[in-house]
């Protein structure tokens, strides 16, 4: 065995260029598989982080009519949906996957938020309690947040985000200014921003809309003042922060169940649904994996082509070494030994090609990552699997040359000079 491996290396060393060219097919095949799979896995990791937000773990549960969010601005709220009370909220907070939770109401506002002559063309108004900011992952940048007395005394105060601040006040300090929301004056008490641990990166059009509508123009007011602007029985949504990323789905499902438990109808048309970003991330990941699996198939075909190249060269090698084979047979080498020599040589050749291919593939993956900004993830499992696979290819395509070598007639072989 050791002798066979040594012979294989001798054979490869005595024909360096030829061996290198033979290996090239394998190198390209393996390198593409490594590069593609590293990029897929990196992309998947990124999708998860982008959508889910590292450390944010926020799940929202909203009313849905069929597959679309229920729009309270245009539709009448069905009678079977009662207003949410604090008992329900407490119940949700007691779920073990839930770290914190808050109810909120929300309406889109087009041009209804103004200050003097300036107005915000598109924004969202949220009716919240004072815990909302921390659950959602917002922090106060200037001024103060809501207090219990703001809520209890129905104070018409508002928090605005940087988009609103920039639009209405052009960068000047907004704290203390009065803004007009749907015709009612509200005093700005603070400006908020996303907490620094939530930095989504936009890579698809869908994500662009998700983040640009939700991060563009938010105005927060105490929910107690909501009836001043809108209906008093406004349906509310739930935002929860899960204890960790992996329990987001469970937290969302359980909260959804509790909320749907308050609905007074079997199989209601309008019901609560959790908007689980982790789930969405998984769907996106599956999509990207599916397309990339096809790429790996193509790379696999190039490996087969490489294998045929190996077979070709091994056949040449058998012909070249006919006298050597004849001598070995005369000296008592068995067929098995002769075939093992060529099988192992083919295996070593492709295995070397595989190892070089892994190195080239990792280099390629880094290159792709540098150029496109997509992170890469290199898996030892895949590296080991591809090297073993390349060895197997050598074995498979070395089989015919090895068989021919073993069957050579020693007399013919010795006469061949």
């Amino acid at each position, binding site marked *: 065995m050791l*002798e066979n491996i040594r012979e294989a290396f*001798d054979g490869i060393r*005595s024909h360096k260029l030829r061996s290198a060219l033979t290996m090239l097919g394998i190198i390209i095949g393996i390198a593409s598989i490594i590069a593609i799979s590293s990029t897929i896995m990196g992309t998947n990791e990124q999708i998860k982080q982008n959508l889910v937000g590292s450390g944010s773990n926020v799940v929202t549960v909203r009313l849905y009519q069929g597959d679309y969010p229920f729009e309270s601005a245009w539709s009448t709220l069905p009678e079977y949906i009662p207003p949410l009370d604090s008992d329900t909220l407490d119940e949700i907070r007691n779920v073990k996957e839930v770290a914190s939770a808050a109810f909120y109401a929300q309406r889109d506002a087009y041009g209804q938020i103004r200050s003097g002559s300036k107005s915000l063309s598109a924004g969202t108004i949220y009716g919240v309690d004072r815990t909302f900011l921390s659950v959602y992952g917002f922090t106060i940048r200037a001024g103060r947040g809501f207090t219990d007395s703001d809520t209890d005394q129905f104070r018409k105060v508002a928090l605005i985000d940087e988009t609103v601040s920039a639009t209405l006040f052009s960068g000047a300090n907004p704290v203390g200014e009065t803004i007009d929301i749907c015709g009612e004056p509200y005093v700005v008490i603070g400006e908020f921003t996303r907490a620094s641990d939530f930095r989504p990166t936009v890579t698809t059009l869908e994500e662009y809309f998700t983040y640009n509508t939700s991060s563009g123009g938010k105005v927060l007011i105490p929910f107690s003042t909501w009836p001043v602007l809108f209906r008093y029985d406004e349906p509310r949504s739930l935002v929860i922060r899960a204890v960790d990323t992996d329990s987001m789905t469970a937290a969302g499902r359980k909260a959804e169940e509790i909320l749907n438990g308050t609905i007074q109808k079997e199989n209601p048309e309008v019901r609560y649904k959790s908007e689980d970003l982790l789930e969405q991330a998984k769907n996106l990941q599956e999509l990207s994996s599916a397309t990339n699996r096809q790429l790996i198939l193509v790379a696999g075909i190039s490996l087969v082509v490489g294998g045929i190249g190996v077979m070709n060269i091994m056949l040449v090698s058998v012909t070249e070494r006919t*006298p*050597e084979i*004849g*001598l*070995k*047979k*005369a*000296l*008592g*080498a*068995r*067929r098995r*030994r002769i075939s093992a020599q060529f099988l192992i040589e083919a295996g070593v050749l492709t295995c070397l090609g595989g190892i070089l291919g892994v190195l080239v593939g990792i280099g390629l993956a880094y290159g792709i990552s540098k150029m496109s900004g997509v992170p890469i993830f290199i898996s030892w499992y895949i590296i080991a699997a591809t090297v073993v696979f390349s060895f197997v290819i050598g074995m498979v395509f070395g089989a015919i040359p090895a068989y021919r070598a073993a069957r050579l007639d*020693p*007399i013919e072989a*010795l006469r061949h*000079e």
Partner: protein
Amino acid sequence: MLIRLEHIEKTYGTADHPVPVLHDVNFSMEDGEYYAIMGPSGSGKSTLMNILGYLDTPTRGTYYFEDVDNSRASDTQMAKIRNEKIGFVFQSFHLLQRRKAWENVALPLMYGNVPKRERRERAEEALTEVGLKDRMDFYPTQLSGGQCQRVAIARAICTQPKLLLADEPTGALDSKSGQQIMDIFDRLHERGMSIIMITHELAVAERASDMMHIYDGVLSKGGPR
């Protein structure tokens, strides 16, 4: 009786166009004898050699080696016989260029599954016998033709075979190197080695204790007519 050939015939070619090479060859040889077989090219001497060395099988007739008929032996069994009982010396040495002298010598030991440590010792003994102990770690390219043939002889004898088959062992050498090779054969013969040597040089053949002649596939006693 070391070997006995009874009515050996060998025919090449197809059934429609048979090419007879050996005709009714009868020959026997005792342990320790030294035969030279002479004959022009195409006379069938190489074919005879291949049959004697279990590289080929006769079309008809029986070949007894140590009184055993191995005609039904499998490929693996024939390899074992070649490995253990027969030593080959070829005109063109057939050394592996990427192996040191001693590794070339140890090759048949490897095929005979001799433990690794023992191989080097036995290769050294065999190389000492042919006077190349100091060239053990040389590669064939660093050796002269005569030295290469001596390494090949060492390779043939290191398994302590029953029969040494030499096919034109001096054919590729100058006369001085050829002399050395013949001296080695003489020495081996004195120590009891059975040798069959094929040659077309009378001077070489005369060194053997007995001479045979083959012409058109017919083997006969004595030198060329």
